[in-house]
């Protein structure tokens, strides 16, 4: 029996629904934005999903790695995607919820040497790496090489400490930092989806607020 009302929404239908929820002015800003997500793990896959749902016009997904079975407890991939490149798997998953946004992928490892070329077209950059040294490299690299861009980074979301410790801080007018600042994955027992998602949600919200012109935290 056919399911009544079931259909695939058109671009116009989805745009109208976004404008109803966000307001037409704000949606225009979201639709015109290009945001890079660097690292597509527990932070990046959740950030990207939030931004795709918000109708960010162009998402730039960057990761060199493939989906592993140990990722499934906190990252936005399906069991059937183990072994796929995260860029391709996440692009598929974002397309399933937001089919009309532009998604650009780069399956490479970001380094000090290639970040200038890779990130030139993105106004806002999300640092969503796993390793502390890589986080520092990207934040310093972006702030030194692109003084006009915003970077939203994360530090401290491991373990199972209270979620209220996760917060957003403005370090400089171009550098926002989310997390509790101290919970190191190497020292805390594990990473938990809900706590990592909290931090990712802080990052995604910081991006939306910046695009809306809201610069305070």
């Amino acid at each position, binding site marked *: 029996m056919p399911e009544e009302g079931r259909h695939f929404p058109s671009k116009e239908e989805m745009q109208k629904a976004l404008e109803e929820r966000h307001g037409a002015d704000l949606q225009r800003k979201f639709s015109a934005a290009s945001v890079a997500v660097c690292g597509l793990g527990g932070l990046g896959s959740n950030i990207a999903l939030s931004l795709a749902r918000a109708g960010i016009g162009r998402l730039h997904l960057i990761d060199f790695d493939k989906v592993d079975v140990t990722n499934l407890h906190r990252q936005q991939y399906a069991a059937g995607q183990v072994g796929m490149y995260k860029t391709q798997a996440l692009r598929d998953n974002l397309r399933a919820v937001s089919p009309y946004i532009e998604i650009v992928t780069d399956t490479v490892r970001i380094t000090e040497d290639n970040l200038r070329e890779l990130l030139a077209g993105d106004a806002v950059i999300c640092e969503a*790496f*796993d390793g502390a040294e890589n*986080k520092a490299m990207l934040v310093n690299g972006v702030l030194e090489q692109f003084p006009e861009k915003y970077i939203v980074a994360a530090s401290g979301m491991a373990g199972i400490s209270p979620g209220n410790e996760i917060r957003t801080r403005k370090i400089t*007018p171009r550098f926002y930092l989310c997390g509790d600042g101290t919970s190191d*994955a190497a020292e805390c027992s594990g990473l938990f989806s809900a706590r990592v998602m909290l931090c990712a949600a802080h990052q995604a919200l910081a991006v939306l607020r910046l695009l809306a012109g809201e610069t305070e935290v």
Partner: protein
Amino acid sequence: MVKINGTDCDMDGKTVAEYLALAGYNPKLVAVEKNGDIVPKAQYDTAVLGDGDTVEVVSFVGGG
């Protein structure tokens, strides 16, 4: 005095690199903001902290 991460510290005349070493930071894991601007990594050895400066050292931890 230099205000570092909210605390007044007697670090006048020290370079950023000297302060990071004294405080036990790994320079590969940090971003350093001074008076609202990021201090480029290449300037850690030459950027000198002075009386009235406000500094924030972000030391990243792993997980994501």
